[in-house]
């Protein structure tokens, strides 16, 4: 392996991504107010508190059960704002199109972006379109940036987890990653697995009244629940203990994962959030989620057990306790 080159794993959201960020990107971008390790930067402009974020979408295939690259690009950025507890206001969109891309497909994508923006209650207010020669891009890449209003004084962020917090997820994990994988590889499985791509700002708005009890919100996208929880554990300096048996997983996803040998804990989601809530309000948070259409299958999946250097462990179904780590890239065999 060549240490001088960017590898696919640098974009996996796992250990390599973090390394690239910490060793190359952030040090060389000093002076830029970074978002820290959170989903969006918090800005105070003339006394107005704003959240600001950006994200690029390169998903292959661009159409998949449950959505396409367009609604994903809207929901993803809406969710990054929502995870800071901000109310998403408006988005920008940048298209990079490959020469030869079908106009009809672009139309489908743009239409679903419009629909997703309406559903989330945000406006797409500015944009840009570039075309690159055939072979210099893969049909369509989309970048979206977004601004949201922070209308409270809560400090919801990855460093705010406290010992005792319950970890709640708003539904079944792994749907998006498996739906995209099935579409990309033509797995032809009739398990009805669909991407969970959805805007979470509505659900977050209902959780905000929990106030100070709401410590962390994070959407477990690339790298899945495992990677996101590890980030939170590291940022907060705590140990998170998961219970394998309490993880909500669709039977279809569980089945495909078990045949493919994939761990759902590392599979991407696009309509899920992890909420870390003070224990005395956890039941209430769970009830709020379950009343919401995007939280019907919400479950408490773990808790913060102690202060530490940042560990995630999982009580397995057979009664052991295993460590949960970020992966460097793909899931690779480890057993000798």
């Amino acid at each position, binding site marked *: 392996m060549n240490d001088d080159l960017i590898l696919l794993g640098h974009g996996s959201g796992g250990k390599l991504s973090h390394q690239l960020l910490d060793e190359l990107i952030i040090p060389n971008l000093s002076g830029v107010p970074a978002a820290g390790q959170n989903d969006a930067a918090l800005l105070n402009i003339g006394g107005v508190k704003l959240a600001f974020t950006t994200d690029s979408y390169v998903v292959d295939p661009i159409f998949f059960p449950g959505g396409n690259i367009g609604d994903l690009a809207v929901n993803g950025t809406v969710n990054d704002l929502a995870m800071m507890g901000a109310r998403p206001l408006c988005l920008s969109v940048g298209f990079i199109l490959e020469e030869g891309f079908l106009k009809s497909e672009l139309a489908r994508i743009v239409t679903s972006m419009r629909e997703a923006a309406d559903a989330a209650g945000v406006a797409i207010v500015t944009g840009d379109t570039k075309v690159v020669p055939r072979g210099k891009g893969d049909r369509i890449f989309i970048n979206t940036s977004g601004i949201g209003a922070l209308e409270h004084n809560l400090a919801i962020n990855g460093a705010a987890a406290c010992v005792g917090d319950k970890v709640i997820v708003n539904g079944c994990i792994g749907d998006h990653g498996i739906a995209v994988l099935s579409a990309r590889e033509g797995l032809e499985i009739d398990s009805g697995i669909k991407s969970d791509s959805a805007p979470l700002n509505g659900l977050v708005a209902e959780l905000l009244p929990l106030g100070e009890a709401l410590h962390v919100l994070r959407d477990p996208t690339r790298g899945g629940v495992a990677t996101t929880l590890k980030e939170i554990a590291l940022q907060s300096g705590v140990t998170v203990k998961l219970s394998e048996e309490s993880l909500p997983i669709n039977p279809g996803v569980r089945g495909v994962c078990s045949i493919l040998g994939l761990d759902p804990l590392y599979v991407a989601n696009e309509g899920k959030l992890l909420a870390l809530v003070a224990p005395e309000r956890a039941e209430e948070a769970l009830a709020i989620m379950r009343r919401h259409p995007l939280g019907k299958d919400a479950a408490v999946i773990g808790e913060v057990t102690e202060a530490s250097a940042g560990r995630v462990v999982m009580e397995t179904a057979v*009664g052991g306790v295993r460590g949960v780590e970020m992966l460097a890239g793909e899931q690779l065999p480890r057993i*000798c």
Partner: protein
Amino acid sequence: MQSETVRAAIEIGGIVQGVGFRPFVYRLALRLGLSGWVRNTGQGVEIEVEGEALQLDEFRRAVRDEAPPLAVICQLRAQPVPATGGKGFAILESARSAAGGEVSPDCDVCDDCLAELFDPDNRRYGYPFINCTNCGPRYSIITGIPYDRPATTMAGFAMCDDCLAEYHDPGNRRFHAQPNACPVCGPCLTLMEPSGAKVSGDALKRTLEALSQGKIVAVKGVGGYHLAVDATNQAALERLRQRKRRDEKPFAMLAADLGAVSRHAHCSELEGRLLLGVERPIVLMRKLAGTSINELVAPGNGWFGFMLPGNPLQHLLARGFDAPLVMTSCNLSDEPIAYRDAEALEMLSGIADLFLTHHREIHTRTDDSVLRLYRGEPLFLRRSRGYVPRAVQLPTEQPSVLAVGGELKATLCLTRGDRAFMSQHIGDLKNAATLASLEQSASDLQRLLEITPALVAHDLHPDYLSTGYAAALGLPAVAVQHHHAHMASCMAENGLEGDVIGVILDGTGYGADGTIWGGEFLVGGYRAFQRRGHFAQMRMPGGDAAVKEPYRMALSALYSLHGDRLFDQPLPVVSEVALADRPLFLKMLEKGINSPLTSSCGRLFDAVSALIGVRRRISYEGQAAIELEALAEQGGEVEPYPYRVLEEWGQVLDFAPAVAAICADLAGGRSRADIARAFHRTVARGVLEVCRRLKQETGYVRVVLSGGVFQNRLLTEEVADLLADEGFQVYCHRLVPPNDGGLALGQAAIAGAMQARG
């Protein structure tokens, strides 16, 4: 008859360090009433003994004939020196080890203490914590240095007057015996219900009664808790298997003496000596037909693992019970062995009916060591209690290295000068408690051995937890390719330098090219290696899932032969897969979805094991290959199957023709034992063929055999014999396991060599 007093200086060369040689000499000298001393030197061991001439002759004979089984004596020179009239026999510090101390392993009760233990008139009659300077717990109870009572878990016990008198009397066997204790002042046994309630009456007697009623008793040993149960009681064993969640791993047994072992297993003279060694390991021996040991002890396995009592409590239990007792590590699935009282009670409350415990704390958890014999030589499967932390001699001095091993059978290695200290078996690091214990052991060992490593060595695998641990230490780090480390491990313990051919037959390890290796022909030495050949690659459908479910490897092998017509083959392994799942399996193999390519030899054994219906899913590591070997043992004298060697950028050893022939044999109804036997033979032939070619290319005749597959006795013997017959010098493991338990030694040697000459 009175003979004159003489003194002799004896020099012994060979593998005599790190094998328990000095304690052996010490005991021998005491037995024969000789005075003098023994110490390690750069070349081996140096002894001076003084006493009656006849006894000295007997000493010279016994040093050779009764040497510890792991020792190899290459030369023994004795010459007379003037008698000094000195008294007593001492183990002297070697001049070279002045830079830092060593820590003694835990040791079985000595003969003197054993006699006292069963002497009704002795004040320690039946006392399970009897020990003296010659025996007893060491490594497991030491918390710091210097080795003194306050730096052991005996610190909380104040000696009574009688014990103190012994402790301060230079003429007494217990002079400065740090764990010295007696029923008045020392720890005592308690028998508890899972609720923590104390069972009244004599704890030992009640325990023996419970065992004879088929109860499962957690017994606190030297290095951790064991689960004890009557090895002849079917119902009790069923309960234990079921409570341990259908685990099929063979259970080890405790037998009172060699006679008892011989009633159930073929126990050779050498196996007997291994069993009787002060280290008291588990020794795997072939099952005897018609034994009263229940099949559930070691299902599907041709071997029994036995140990003899290794501490006073086990002596008392074994003598008090008339059948062998299962003595299996007390743990749940992948959890490490329980060793703290509260934790054991919590972890085992659903498993054990009773707890036989005491309040001498275990500081360092050490599992039992496991050995088997092949070609008349001992081979470690796990090197832990009794052997650890004895040093392994390295070929040269090197900078101090901390090597952190692999992931599944993690051990550590710390080096100082030309000595390498291997840690106890730490276990599967994916388990959170095991990872914590790796960190604890690393800092404990550095402190106890007074070693400050200059660099850290770790595996190349980016996601091994040991890799992450190494990176966080802030020391200069050396990433070592997995199979290079296996090769170097075998070289180091055999004292080899220069370049060799390494035949590394293994499960899976991360390769230098990012693929998964495991059937490798390497050429090189410590500082560098070339991959000059490997087994043909197969897909591992599902990654780690393919390790736990060997039928996946069978499907993969069939896919290589038949492509998408794989499910049309009239084979049992194919019909196992649900119709609905077949398209997904095909896609996975076609597109390589989570199906990395591997050249693993272990996975090939898995494929064949599943193919012929031995084992399609496993409940413990290596089960498919272990049961395949057991089946092959029953096979006749058979011809090998065809294979081919493709010359690409290196030698690619392809067993696809063998797999095709096996399928034909299965259809033809050939005996599965013969098929299994022929397969073993085929792999051995293929290995020989590639080695021949490498010898032609390089001129090298030294071949080291390493990797987890070399735990397979049948294959190891075939490979070693074929190579030796063609004039190769074959080197196998003898001091550390060929599996990942020996990896850290190789990592340390490689890192040391790169640093020293880099």
